[in-house]
């Protein structure tokens, strides 16, 4: 028995050894998988970072370019004792900093292994040059060039957005695309066009030997990959106009948007207060300061804030009533300092001649006129109830680009709010509201909320006599084609012929002359034929908001503008001058009204704005 058992045990031993040998045979000789993996380990991929795409304005001026910066890299395993004082002096830092960094690398040496780590980020070119001259004294320490963003003009900080190093969350959200140390656009165009701007990383492959020394280029570099630079982007922005608009809006809270009506291209879009490009370049330094600013400079009011449009919305109501046939160009309504909608309630109006026709009502911005007009539309017998009529009104308003996202190329555009019968059924109960309840929508107040971009788009619609192209920020360029939707005309539900009936009113509002009762005489520029409409929107937090839309010239308009200034009072006091100066600058290239310009540039309304 003993011998038999010994035999069985020896057979077992042989089988076990064979199992080991067969498995080793498989992984060493049969299966290629492990060899491929192994070459990944012994090949060194040196990443070549692409240059990021340049962002141009509509005239070919560079808004965002690239410049070289130098990171000081350390490969702790290759470092030999060196002159700490000399290195510190050369790099413009303290010996303590270098010592603490070296101590840190020593502590983390297991984790770092043979990798290189960044000791100093973005040192300037002079420092780098003086280091490079003596870098042979510091084995294991070298400079790595990297292109960073630079901004030749201070235009459009909020639109452009910033680029910063990706963090763990970002890498998780974009698996396989980014590695630690990569940079990515985080806001604005840099973020929305990240895929075009970033380009493709390339690499050079080197082989290292068992001493971890780089031996040679792998396969003579035939498998290396060139970095593909990012695509350049041409924006619709006019840098000069954008910069001028920023100056006009300085020390004011609000938005200023200019659109080329024919194309829907945004010429300037200012959200004030905003971010200076200088801050974008060094976002890490400024981030906490920006985040703590009570005026929220990072917040793009032009697309992300919605406001009551105020009297500029009378144009929409007037056009809807004309289309519905309940209002004729020639209809006149009286105004006794307002519109009495209940025995003891009156929606006030200012002093002006009475009664007025449509054009004069626009020119004078008569509240009562548009209350009568909208009432006639909403109480039209054609509709079974005011609810049904309001639904129709809502449809019309939506066709003007309100109440929904326009679909522009801003990543975080908001939709605004336009009330429907559902809204009021919820507030008051079905059948328990009537025109008197919702009278304030006649003058663009109440439940109406619109973004400055939508208001500017309204201006473009009127300028085009009834259609718009979705406002957008990026133009076609040789290596980039934008979505065709930006080239399609979107018509409103109001016939183009109706627009001719309101535009003379807008012309008069600006150009009828002082004493005529026109609300926007201050915006008049001889020869430009500006057509405009003021608005004074109630703001529950302090003084009224000053609103103005305009386009010019009247025939074949080149620019449509909306200005919205929070807590600045009448439309004519700040919004109208700002918008008209912008139009004048764009069309004439110079300003004929230096006193008005000085007043606007120096005006400081920040104290009027309440911040939480």
């Amino acid at each position, binding site marked *: *028995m*003993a*011998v038999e*058992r*010994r035999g*069985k*045990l*020896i057979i*077992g*031993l*042989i089988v*076990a*050894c064979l*199992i*080991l*040998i067969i*498995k*080793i*045979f498989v*992984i*060493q*000789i049969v*299966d290629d*998988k*492990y*060899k491929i*993996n*192994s*070459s990944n*380990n*012994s090949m060194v991929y040196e990443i070549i970072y692409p240059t990021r795409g340049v962002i141009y304005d509509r005239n070919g001026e560079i808004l965002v370019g690239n410049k070289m910066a130098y990171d000081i890299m350390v490969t702790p*395993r290759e470092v030999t004792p060196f002159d700490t004082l000399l290195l510190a002096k050369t790099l413009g830092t303290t010996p303590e900093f270098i010592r603490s960094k070296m101590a840190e690398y020593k502590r983390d040496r297991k984790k770092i*292994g*043979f990798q290189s780590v960044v000791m100093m980020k973005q040192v300037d070119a002079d420092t780098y040059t003086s280091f490079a001259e003596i870098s042979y004294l510091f084995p294991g320490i070298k400079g790595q060039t990297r292109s960073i963003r630079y901004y030749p003009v201070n235009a459009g900080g909020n639109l452009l957005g910033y680029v910063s190093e990706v963090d763990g969350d970002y890498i998780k959200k974009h698996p396989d695309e980014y590695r630690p140390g990569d940079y990515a656009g985080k806001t604005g165009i840099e973020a929305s066009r990240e895929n075009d701007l970033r380009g493709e990383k390339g690499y050079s492959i080197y082989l*290292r*030997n*068992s*001493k*971890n020394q780089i031996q040679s280029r792998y396969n003579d570099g035939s498998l290396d990959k060139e970095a593909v630079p990012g695509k350049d982007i041409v924006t619709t922005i006019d840098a000069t106009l954008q910069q001028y608009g920023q100056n006009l809006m300085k020390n004011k809270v609000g938005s200023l948007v200019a659109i080329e009506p024919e194309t829907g291209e945004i010429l300037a879009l200012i959200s004030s207060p905003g971010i200076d490009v200088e801050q974008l370049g060094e976002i890490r330094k400024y981030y906490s300061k920006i985040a703590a600013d009570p005026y929220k400079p990072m917040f793009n009011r032009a697309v992300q804030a919605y406001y009551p449009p105020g009297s500029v919305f009378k144009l929409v109501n007037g056009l809807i009533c004309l289309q519905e046939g309940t209002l004729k160009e020639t209809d006149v309504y009286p105004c006794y300092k307002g519109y009495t909608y209940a025995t003891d309630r009156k929606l006030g109006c200012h002093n002006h001649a009475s009664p007025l026709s449509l054009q004069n009502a626009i020119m004078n911005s008569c509240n009562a006129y548009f209350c009568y007009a909208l009432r006639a539309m909403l109480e039209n017998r054609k509709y079974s109830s005011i609810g049904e009529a309001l639904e129709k009104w809502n449809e019309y308003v939506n066709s003007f680009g309100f109440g929904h996202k326009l679909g522009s190329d801003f990543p975080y555009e908001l939709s605004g709010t336009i009330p429907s019968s559902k809204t009021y059924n919820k507030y008051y109960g079905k059948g328990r509201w009537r025109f008197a309840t919702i009278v304030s929508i006649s003058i663009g107040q109440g439940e109406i909320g619109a973004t400055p971009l939508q208001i500017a788009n309204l201006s473009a619609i009127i300028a085009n006599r009834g259609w718009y192209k979705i406002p957008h920020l990026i133009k076609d360029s040789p290596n980039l084609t934008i979505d065709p939707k930006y080239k399609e005309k979107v018509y409103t539900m109001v016939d183009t012929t109706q627009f001719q009936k309101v535009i003379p009113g807008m012309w008069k509002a600006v150009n009828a002359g002082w004493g005529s009762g026109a609300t926007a005489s201050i915006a008049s520029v001889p020869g430009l034929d500006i057509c405009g409409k003021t608005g004074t929107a109630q703001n529950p937090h302090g003084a009224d908001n000053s609103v103005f839309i305009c386009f010019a010239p009247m025939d074949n308009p080149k620019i449509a503008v909306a200005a919205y200034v929070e807590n600045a009072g009448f439309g004519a006091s700040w919004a109208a001058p700002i918008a008209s100066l912008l139009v004048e600058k764009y069309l004439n290239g110079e300003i004929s009204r230096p006193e008005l310009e000085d007043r606007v540039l120096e005006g400081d309304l920040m104290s009027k704005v309440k911040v939480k």
Partner: protein
Amino acid sequence: MGSYSSSRGIRHSYDWKLIGIYLALVLIGLANIYSSVISSEPSSIFDTSVRSGMQCIWIATSFGLAVLILFIIPARIWETGSIPFYLGVVFLLFAVIFVGSEVKGSHSWFSFGAVKFQPAEISKITTSLVLALIMSQPGFKMAKFGDFAKIALIIGLPMLAILAEKETGSALVYIGFLFVLYREGMSGWILTFIGIIIVLFIVTLTVSPFTAILVLISAILAFNLLQTSHRAINILIAAAVIIALAIIKSINLTLILALAAIPALLYYAYRKRNSFIIASVIAGVVGILFVFSTDIIFNKVLGDHQRKRIEVLLGMKEDPSGVGYNVNQSMIAIGSGGFTGKGYLEGTQTSYGFVPEQSTDFIFCTVGEEWGFVGCLFVISLYFMLILRIINDAEKSREHFTRIYGYCVAACLFMHLFINIGMTIGIMPVIGIPLPMMSYGGSSLWAFTIMIFIFLVLDHQEKKYF
């Protein structure tokens, strides 16, 4: 093996071939330790600030121990002193749990300043000695319950202490003593049953409990059928039943059928006085219970890190950068060696620090990478010859004590060999135990040296007297 019968002079009375294999493994180990540390910290092989230099010291002291054992210490002491040695070491094993210093999560090291010492390494030797002593007593019978219990206690006590020290790997080595017990008369069915249990564990986790039960029933039927005379028909019937169950795929139905079959089988066995069937039924019930408790064992009894290692091993989870990292890197290193390897000191995987624990538990990676399949085959052959030689010498000895001790040494070497290399090539979970003689470390090298040289001196002792 001519040495034993032809001559009794000192030159021939020691098993010099065995010593030669031992030396070869020690030196191969040193060369590979040097290779695994050289590129990260280039220096001479004798520089004691790095591991290869320290290993030289361990090797020199081991040789000193070998000389002591062979020529100075009286050989009788291993038999007469085995019980005190054993008790002393068991005491240390338990003491170290409370006063030992923590190394990588386990409380198994005594520290005396710079010198560290792991009693678990020594306890393999003392346990082997006591096992040899008890089992070589006249009148010892494995089948006697009292004797069997004694042996279970001798093996179980240090194993328990080592488990409590969280040195699971070292505890696993004690399972190797089952081979010794088998050689000394324990039923082979116990080994078979343990094998089946391991298979059930793996099948339950990777396929399903139902498949595991089918495997169990098939195995039991197969073993029973091999004992009967009407094989062909019975095998057909059994195969039909298993296939039917596999098609029905109902675990409940299978269990009901199995339960119903038990009384019938027991009655049949009683009538036929067939104890094999009774044992089969018991094995079946235990096996089924085991299948149902696998989840609990896996999730509750095993520690988190053990569970993860098993999950990675069985391919239940892919985790190449976490728990699976070691194994993945180790397999890459070995795999990249190809047939003849990259050449000595030319390995890139092991010397860049891709493989962790490269000079201790993963020393085999350096062999695989730099010496390729040829080197692996050579090293495994050396171990095979070492174990085979010990078994053959043991079989030839007249003293039961020497034979049993020899088998214990062979079993320990085998367990270390299989678990360690198995781990580096991904067929065993990552269990940190050293490769005998080759891995870096004083404790381990000393222990194996003492263990092997005690056997050599015992073997020599016999040749002297007969």
